[in-house]
């Protein structure tokens, strides 16, 4: 059953990707500027302009450009796993995404892990003690944490923890510029440092991740705590908890039952937030000079770098679809009432 479900979702996903590919391909070409002009600069002749236009393939009719991009009738293209070459760097888009995406995934994974570690107990505690100190803290934290954008918190944390207290490193990326980055194996700095057995680099990377993760956790925890709290309150008011209490089960056991019912919406929220933050963490990446996929996306959009924009949208969409698929599977594991259809 689950195999059919997954297969069906993957097929649907492939169709969605195809539709998106076509939409993005045509939409970027409707942007109100010609990317060639940025390439050649002002110290260029009309001939240079034409040469640049030709080198990008923009002198071809749009449908020819599309077929080339898809790899239909040519040796390389999307169907052959080639996302084309960036118009700014001349490097393969796939390689550039491969360099920037793990940074964002690493940031997000640590951030969501810490968020869950912090937010779930706090949310449950808040639900268990309505109107008490923990609950009030959750209320004010929700207002406070969500009241400012993440880059503002990031800058504030840099000011406090780096500039004033001196306990955080300078916002200089994933690792101190004076240390050698571990040899690239997975692209995830912490993993690569462990694989290389370079613990100095490993701890330096953790140290550099400290403030960006804190920033993300600070902002993400608000909605997650609220979701846990609401879900727990709803679960605690449900019949099966009433029955469990009436049956004289221990509070520990009842809480466990209630949490299991309450966790599904939280996991859904975290999954959605994860997908959103793939591109949405750009400001945090910018504040801490992390060079993740968000920064790459912004640079590509500002440069009207069509291949990079198309590649980024495709990859982020693919990851989001994968996350939603995993969420559905996880949801069913948590809640036996969910049936694969």
């Amino acid at each position, binding site marked *: 059953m689950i195999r059919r479900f997954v297969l069906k979702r993957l097929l649907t996903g492939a169709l969605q990707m195809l539709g998106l590919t076509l939409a993005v391909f045509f939409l970027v070409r409707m942007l109100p*500027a*010609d*990317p*060639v*002009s*940025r*390439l*050649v*600069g*002002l*110290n*260029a*002749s*009309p*001939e*240079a*302009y034409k*040469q*640049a236009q030709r*080198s*990008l393939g923009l002198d071809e009719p749009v449908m020819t450009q599309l077929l080339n991009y898809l790899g239909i009738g040519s040796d390389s293209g999307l169907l052959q796993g080639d996302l084309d070459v960036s*118009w*700014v*760097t*001349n490097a393969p888009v796939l390689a*550039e995404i491969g360099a920037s995406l793990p940074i964002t995934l690493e940031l997000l994974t640590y951030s969501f892990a810490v968020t869950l*570690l*912090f937010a*779930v*107990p*706090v949310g*449950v505690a808040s639900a*268990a003690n309505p109107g008490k100190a923990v609950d009030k803290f959750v209320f004010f934290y929700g207002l406070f944490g969500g009241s400012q954008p993440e880059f503002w918190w990031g800058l504030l944390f840099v000011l406090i923890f*780096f500039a004033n207290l001196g*306990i*955080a490193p*300078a*916002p*200089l*990326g994933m690792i101190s*510029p*004076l240390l050698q980055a571990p040899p690239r194996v997975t692209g995830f700095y912490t993993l690569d440092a462990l694989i290389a057995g370079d613990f*100095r680099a490993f*701890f330096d990377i*953790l*140290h550099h991740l400290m403030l960006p993760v804190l920033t993300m956790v600070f902002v993400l925890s608000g909605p997650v705590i609220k979701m846990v709290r609401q879900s727990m309150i709803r679960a605690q008011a449900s019949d099966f908890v009433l029955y469990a209490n009436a049956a004289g089960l221990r*509070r*520990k056991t009842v809480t*466990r039952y209630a*949490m*299991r019912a309450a*966790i599904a919406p939280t996991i859904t929220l975290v999954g959605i937030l994860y997908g959103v933050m793939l591109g949405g963490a750009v400001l945090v990446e910018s*504040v801490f*000079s992390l*060079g993740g996929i968000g920064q*790459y996306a912004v*640079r590509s959009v*500002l440069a009207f770098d069509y291949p990079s924009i198309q590649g980024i949208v495709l990859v982020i969409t693919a990851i989001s679809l994968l996350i939603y698929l995993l969420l559905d599977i*996880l949801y069913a*594991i948590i809640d036996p009432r969910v049936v694969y259809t």
Partner: protein
Amino acid sequence: MRAFMFPPNLRQTLARTGSAIALTAGAILSTVSPTAAAEGDTLLFLAEDVPSGLDIDGPSIAIPTTQLGMVQLLEPLIAYEYFDEPNEDGVLMPDFTKPVGRLLESWDYDPETLVWTLHLRKGVLSCAGNEFTADDMMYTYARALNVGSAVPNAWFLLNMSGVKGFTQEVFSPDEDVAKEARILGDGIRKIDDYTIEVEQVEANPLLLVNMAVTISQGVLDSKVMEENATEDDPWAYDYANNVNLPSFGPYCLESWTKNDEIRFKANPNYYRGVAPIETAIIKKVPQGGNRISILRSGQAQLIQGMTPNQYDSLRKMPGIKVSGVTGNEGLFGVMNFATPPFDNIKLRQAIAYAMPYERIINVGYSGQAKQWESVIPETYPGYTPYEPGYSYDPEKAKELLAEAGYPNGEGLEEFAEQFKLTYVAEKETTLGPVVNQIRTALNEIGIPVTLDPIPQTQYGDRQIVKKDLAFGLNDQEKPIGVDAGYAMQLFFVSAEAGGLNNMMNYKNPELDEQWSVARVEGDMDKREEILSDMQTTLMEDVAWLPIVTFKTQWAHSDKLSGLSWNPSNSLLLYDLHY
């Protein structure tokens, strides 16, 4: 099927979680101290970005941070002697009247045959240890003529210099013609291992000027390039764009992560002596505020890309010095001659007299600018300030506006669309205060200006390709060739007369005629006289509206000195020392 099991005792869980986080943080902090400051032989330089590519003809050649990386690796054919005394900020300034050989030891010119004989310096070694010879020059010229990459930058300057064989035919739609034109003929000849001859099709003094443009005319280490050529990429464009730029410059590439950092090691073979700073790291820190914080902490020694107001604040901070040069950066207005009402000279002059120059200098540039009085940079040879000049005179502006047919601005309301002052949105922090000053001043005399920030790429497209910017403000164009004639051909001569980027559709047959004479004038005094006249004409016509020329600035540790300026505005790290 039990996917999640959370400990039920919440207080204990909270306590455990808190303790775990505290312990982990403690462990990390006890193991890792904040980044140690770079010392002695290392420089940490924070910039807005790092090079996106390194190829001379690559797609990112127009990006200043790309040029910053390239000038560390390349060695120019010729450069300019520095003046004995640095400027008021301690920055060494080039004397453009005194070219000095670098990769070229000397050169001769025969006006009869239009042949330049270039004598190459002997004993120059590349980062790979290869000796610089005529083969490297021939390879670099042949590659330039191949125009196979995104931007034929090297070809462009050689074409502009009138070098034989560097013709427009390389772009011919007829493939056979283009293929034939891309083969290096007898326009550039190897005489022996240390001598090259370059022949021009007509007398053109721009050749010497353009040879000093490092980012276009830098010479590649042909042996390394050929080793990295492939069947699909015989000129190693991918290698130069994405891996290394092998050359004979003061630094060698140690590592490079695009979008993150680039590291240089001093070239141990450099013929002028090994760089005082052995390791230089240029690190991307996008946030200006963070660049300041890190510089203040002492962990970085040099930053760039700040706004004038930020530099002004930095100037007052202990341990930090701000150095700047009023070199070749200027702010100017563009009024499109093809778009009424800007075809009206009186209106353009009215706007020139309504411009609040002093307010712009003080508010927009914190005093680190001065009024720009010509259309070429004041540091360039042949610069001629306009007499009597434009000054802020609202009464005179009103008179001119009335003479233009719009007393007190009456009648201009129908041109609301044309009076949108367009500028690059990404430069809002710098240009925002300036455009507001301009809007206020022009509104005061009845000109209905509104503001129109648009993305950089869109601005470039409208300026270079569509040429339909009615009223624009620009602070990012400079002629990279240090010559008034170069600027004339680039910006002001009409396309019919060989002009390249006449963004405001200015057409003046007399000016075109003057340029046709000056372009091939071998007598430099006569040439300068013509170029001076041309500047005056352009100022009278308000072809551009030069507003201010402002300082290119850097902030750095006060222990760092030796800053020098060159027209690319990219700091040469070789000159720096503690």
